[in-house]
């Protein structure tokens, strides 16, 4: 079995539809209903939104495929690196943590499949893109761990908290219950990432800096143009309380919020330029 595979090599059955990010954004089902739009954004996921059911189903499908990729990423970290003290190696205990994460993510996949069914959607109704797994392809174990366990699993904290609140507001105790359990696991995974980053770079501040830079890149990418943030109309809210439990300090959380604002401003600017270009070309 070869080491370091690419996202194209992930095994999927025929139900799964792979799409890149642009195709996903162009999916008309992701369009914002005008009546719900605030500054062109759908706002928080609440049951009173006209598109609440579809949005919740789409988010649940996104969680499901995200969990599969998280499972695959943790599994590959068990396999891709040797135990040792070199920069390309990892400690034995880190592999054990990744195996534990594998089990957790496998349960999350199982939970997500059942919740998807409960919410009226099924595997393949929405597309999958593999950019989450992309972060798990980094050949540097410290960068991979920081990108996956701090950035992506951090996003999972925000998403599960959002979904848990939606379950509460919608009067869906099954959804709320399951999301709360998954949230507990994600806090554990992020804490693993924070602890290992500290341990592995304790004598190598340059490497730590590089890893945190990589985390910022992933965090910005996974702000989805400002979809995740702290403003009222961010559909996915930054879950500060749970991130704090997972080892994030105030400064780091403020940084993520700022990255999200930057990502949002960039997307809005691109939209403005595109509209201007359309006007000029008479479209």
């Amino acid at each position, binding site marked *: *079995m070869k080491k370091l595979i690419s996202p194209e090599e992930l*095994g999927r059955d025929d139900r799964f539809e792979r799409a890149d990010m642009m195709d996903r954004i162009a999916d008309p089902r992701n369009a914002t209903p005008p009546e719900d739009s605030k500054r062109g954004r759908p706002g928080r996921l609440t049951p009173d939104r006209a598109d609440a059911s579809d949005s919740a189903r789409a988010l649940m499908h996104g969680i499901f495929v995200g969990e599969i990729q998280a499972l695959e990423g943790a599994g590959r970290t*068990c396999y891709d690196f040797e135990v040792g003290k070199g920069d390309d190696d990892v400690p*034995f205990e880190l592999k*054990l943590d*990744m195996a534990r994460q*594998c089990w957790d993510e496998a349960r999350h996949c199982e939970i997500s499949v059942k919740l998807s069914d409960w919410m009226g959607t099924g595997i393949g109704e929405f597309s999958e893109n593999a950019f989450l797994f992309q972060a798990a392809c980094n050949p540097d174990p410290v960068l991979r761990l920081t990108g996956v366990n701090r950035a992506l699993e951090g996003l999972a904290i925000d998403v599960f908290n959002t979904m848990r609140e939606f379950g509460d507001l919608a009067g869906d105790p099954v959804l709320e219950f399951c999301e709360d359990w998954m949230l507990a696991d994600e806090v554990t995974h992020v804490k693993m990432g924070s602890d290992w980053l500290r341990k592995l770079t304790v004598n190598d501040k340059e490497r730590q800096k590089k890893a945190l830079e990589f985390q910022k890149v992933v965090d910005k990418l996974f702000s989805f143009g400002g979809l995740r943030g702290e403003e009222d109309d961010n559909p996915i809210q930054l879950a500060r309380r749970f991130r704090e439990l997972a080892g994030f300090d105030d400064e780091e959380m403020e940084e993520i919020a700022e990255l999200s604002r930057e990502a949002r401003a960039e997307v809005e600017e691109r939209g403005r330029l595109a509209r201007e270009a359309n006007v000029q070309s008479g479209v």
Partner: protein
Amino acid sequence: MADSKKPRAAFAPWDRRELPGTFSVEETADRVGQYKWTEMKLFEALGGWVATVPELDIKMRLGTHCYHHAWHAELWHKRLPELREMNPERLTLPANDEFVAFMDAVTEPGEHDQTIEKLVGVYRVLIPHKIAAYTYHLNNTSTITDAPTIRSLKFAIADEVEDFTDGTLMLTSLIETPEEVERANAHQLKLEKLLVASGGICGPGTIGDAYDTSVHVAANGN
């Protein structure tokens, strides 16, 4: 209420554990190190396969089993210093080169269309062998002096049996045609030959010698 000062037997009538055991501290440490090496190779491979297996239920199950074997590796890792091996890495070794060749062949299939081969290696060959080796160890070590190893062996065997059942169910559902039966059997045959050449997870003597007629089991247990 009984008189709490009345002397009782140190070993109650229902407790028939014995002092003698087949393995010395050093032999036990060697075996435990070989178990750890094998469990590591197994959980790493299961983790690696999760990404390339297309069948969703199997993908999720392998993720669960990956942790079972990582936990066994951890149990053995923690047992080594208790067996006077303060550097566990030193004894984290395969029994011999032939066993390395066997494990390489078990973990080699990597393609999407090789799920049958992946599962055959683990659930038809390696895990049944581990159940045999762990059971032999359990039944031959001192039930008093080596109780910590026995406890870990029992946990590991419980997982192995459960995983073997899962694996058998998954394989039974995957093998649907005579060609697939042949594929599975051919791969099993290849691996069994490599395993026999190695003598097993601990090399020759992994499960003792059934042809050694000099070993007598007395009727009175002594």
